């Protein structure tokens, strides 16, 4: 093993060390640079280095929040399950965004038939209402009512048409024929197509004076509005100007999901003018004006229309809600336990193995630094089990050192000089360290690949730990030992932990 005292190896270690110091210290550096207090929650965090965010991603059991696992049922025919799952994720993401959660995690799972949702700082109740909400999409026409003064069309109030989200088979954002602007394509089911054809025909007939080529020229009766959850009760209140104006604002799913009977929520999706009778069941909503919709606006509208009806039914498999105090408490306890365990291990190593033990403890610090940095960069979402996995991997890092040091003692007793004994010990302990760690790596890979979901994150933290422990125990400890041995001062066996076994 040409690992000792060779410059490429040392540079690698120094590089890793600097990298870890940077990543681990990034938070503090950022706080100092921006004059934030060094501890506690501060607005403006996590630290951001040119778009690169470095911080521990805490799992819900540490941060507090809600985890829900959904089973998708009632898949629509004619679409692949993967597509439907993706579409459902988009809808859920859209709905969840309205909650203002930082970093919501919405993932596909299972055999394209599961979705897990992780939301920090949201109660299960809120989350389920927003995600599982069955918003009813309705179309209205406008009818004259002189008492109406507010809302989207002054002097007119909406009238339900019987055309609902159930009649829409898809809504997608596409680039229009000119290739510049974005439009939303709506496809109706056959029942919807009939109804929509009749509505648009009536619409155009209602304002015969309008030239159908001009968007600017329109009358209220020629508009079709799309709403979420607009109820007859809302329409009855339309003469209240404030009420009508509020409801006519762009829809808000979070408000709708958590609404009590007295809340007034914005409900309008779009209020579009009908240019001509549309009979085939294919409608296009354009943005109006010359530019049309932006891509974002078109996609938002399309998602809004489809979000009215999830493509599948969501069945709740499991819900976990962790209070933020419990999370903080768990963090404190596990960090305390980890630190306690680590200090016992370090103390033991120093007392039992003296100089090599102290060097191994230094290597252990290096190890911890590298692992934390990797957790931040990958990023690994830390859970309670993950932290325990890390603490356990410390045991493995120590194990490689113990193997080497025990071997070292034997070699010294066998009459080797101390520097020769260091080399022989590392060389002879290597196969055991290598074989045992490789078997652990394989086990971790199997768990991360095919293991139960609950185990996967844990396996990844353990895997990172095993790699770092190989580097720290073999390369770092060995190099430190070699450097110290070169000094000559520490060559006395008593400092190497060998004295107590002097033979009688």
């Amino acid at each position: 093993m040409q690992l000792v005292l060779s410059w490429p190896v040392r540079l690698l270690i120094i590089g890793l060390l600097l990298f870890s110091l940077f990543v681990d210290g990034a938070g503090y550096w950022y706080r100092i640079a921006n004059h934030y207090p060094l501890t506690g929650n501060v607005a403006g965090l996590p630290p951001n280095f040119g778009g690169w965010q470095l911080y521990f991603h805490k799992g819900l059991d540490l941060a507090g929040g809600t985890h829900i696992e959904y089973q998708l049922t009632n898949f629509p025919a004619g679409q692949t399950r993967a597509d439907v799952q993706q579409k459902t994720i988009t809808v859920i993401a859209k709905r969840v965004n309205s909650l203002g959660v930082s970093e919501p995690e919405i993932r596909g799972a299972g055999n394209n038939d599961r979705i897990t949702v992780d939301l920090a700082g949201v109660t299960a109740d809120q989350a389920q209402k927003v995600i599982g909400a069955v918003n009813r999409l309705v179309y209205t026409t406008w009818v004259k009512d002189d008492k109406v003064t507010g809302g989207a069309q002054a002097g007119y109030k909406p009238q339900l048409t019987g055309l609902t989200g159930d009649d829409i088979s898809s809504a997608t954002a596409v680039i229009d024929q000119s290739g510049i602007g974005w439009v939303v394509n709506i496809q109706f089911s056959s029942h919807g197509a009939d109804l929509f054809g009749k509505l648009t025909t009536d619409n155009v007939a209602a304002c015969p004076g309008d030239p159908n080529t001009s968007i600017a020229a329109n009358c209220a009766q020629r508009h079709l509005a799309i709403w979420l959850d607009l109820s007859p009760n809302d329409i009855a209140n339309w003469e209240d100007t404030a009420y009508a104006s509020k409801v006519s604002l762009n829809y808000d799913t979070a408000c709708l999901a958590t609404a009590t009977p007295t809340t007034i929520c914005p409900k309008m999706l779009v209020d579009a003018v009908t240019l001509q009778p549309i009979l085939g069941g294919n409608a296009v909503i354009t943005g109006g004006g010359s530019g049309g919709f932006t891509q974002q606006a078109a996609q938002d509208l399309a998602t809004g229309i489809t979000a009215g009806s999830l493509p599948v039914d969501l069945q709740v498999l499991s819900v976990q809600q962790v209070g933020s105090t419990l999370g903080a408490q768990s963090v404190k306890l596990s960090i305390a336990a980890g630190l306690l365990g680590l200090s016992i291990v370090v103390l033991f190593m120093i007392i039992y193995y003296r100089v090599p033990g102290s060097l191994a403890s230094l290597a252990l610090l290096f190890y911890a630094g590298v692992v934390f940095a990797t957790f931040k960069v990958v990023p690994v979402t830390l859970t309670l089990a993950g932290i325990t996995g890390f603490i356990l991997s410390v045991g493995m890092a120590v194990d490689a050192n113990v193997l080497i040091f025990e071997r070292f003692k034997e070699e010294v007793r066998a009459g080797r000089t101390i520097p020769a004994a260091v080399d022989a010990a590392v060389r002879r302990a290597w196969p055991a360290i290598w074989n045992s760690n490789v078997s652990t790596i394989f086990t971790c890979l199997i768990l991360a690949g095919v293991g139960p979901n609950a185990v996967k994150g844990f396996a990844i933290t353990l895997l990172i730990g095993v790699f770092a422990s190989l580097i720290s125990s073999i390369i770092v400890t060995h190099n430190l030992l070699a450097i110290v041995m070169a000094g000559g001062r520490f060559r006395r066996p008593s400092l190497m932990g060998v004295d107590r076994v002097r033979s009688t």
Partner: protein
Amino acid sequence: MLRTETSEAEDDGTGVEELEEQPAEEPTTQLKAVVPSVEAQLAPPRVRKIDFVGRRNWYFAFSLLIIIPGIFFMAHSGFKLGIDFAGGTEFTVNFPSQPSQAQVEAAVASENAGGTVISTGGGGYIIRTLPLTPALQKGFETDLTNKVGPYELQQVLEVGGTIAGETIRLALFSVFLAAIVILGLLTFWFRNVPGGWRAGFQFGGSALAALLHDVFLLTGVFAILGTGLNLRIGEINSLFVTAVLTVVGFSVHDTIVVFDRIRENLRVSQRLSFEQVVNISIMQTLVRSIITSFTVVLVLVAILVSGGDTLKGFALALLIGIVSGTYSSIFNAAPLLVVWRRLQPLR
């Protein structure tokens, strides 16, 4: 392992012969006597030689003494299932008013949701009910406030029954796959000992047996704790599955260290019997095995004592598994190798 100044001069670096030539002291038979031998390593008048291989049947019997009752409980009454396997709704709450358990139980019973109440001390309770819909859950929470008092809702867990089966199926599949891979890896690594691939397979197979020993011992102990003694810490949940799978990794880790020493000693000492080589190799790795397990055990005990409630069962499972892994690598895996070698001689 230890030698006099004179013997050092003619040493070949393995110390195998010297150790063998020392008169064997009274063999220590019990597991209890093995652990203090760390102290014996520190300042011994002489090296104690422990006959691991010769007394193997005692050690096998000791393992079976735990595993057979464990399997009996597993087969007879199964496991005590945690909420994520049993299904249902679990509320972890804390009442600042510190009501009595009877008070909380009365409130829960009036809900007709099949609730059970577990006290966690200091006004903390875990309440388990049948699966509740969000609306029912809301109602339950409101009723609890009205009947017992205001509380802090620390955790709500709601699980349908379907996940458990899948988790267990995937876990079994992972153990199966890991077992095959480990058998293959060890057979490959140990093919260069005298005896070739067949010898390698004996090493791999013995390691596998030790691994299965640990898995059955751990699950067996938890079956006894859960359904035999009806303790909450013996509940099986997804963290327990994680612990079992971790123990699989650690168990092999320990066994490999012993086997590696056997491989090395087989190479350098031709005049000793296989049995003697195995026994010496166990002796030589004993200190390392005990120190390593000891450090991990220290950390786990720290978690067990001071860690949060959720981690206690996990830490206990890992603790049992790690101790079992060390025991099985010393007392089962290596002696088993000797038994196998006798039944199927290679040279």
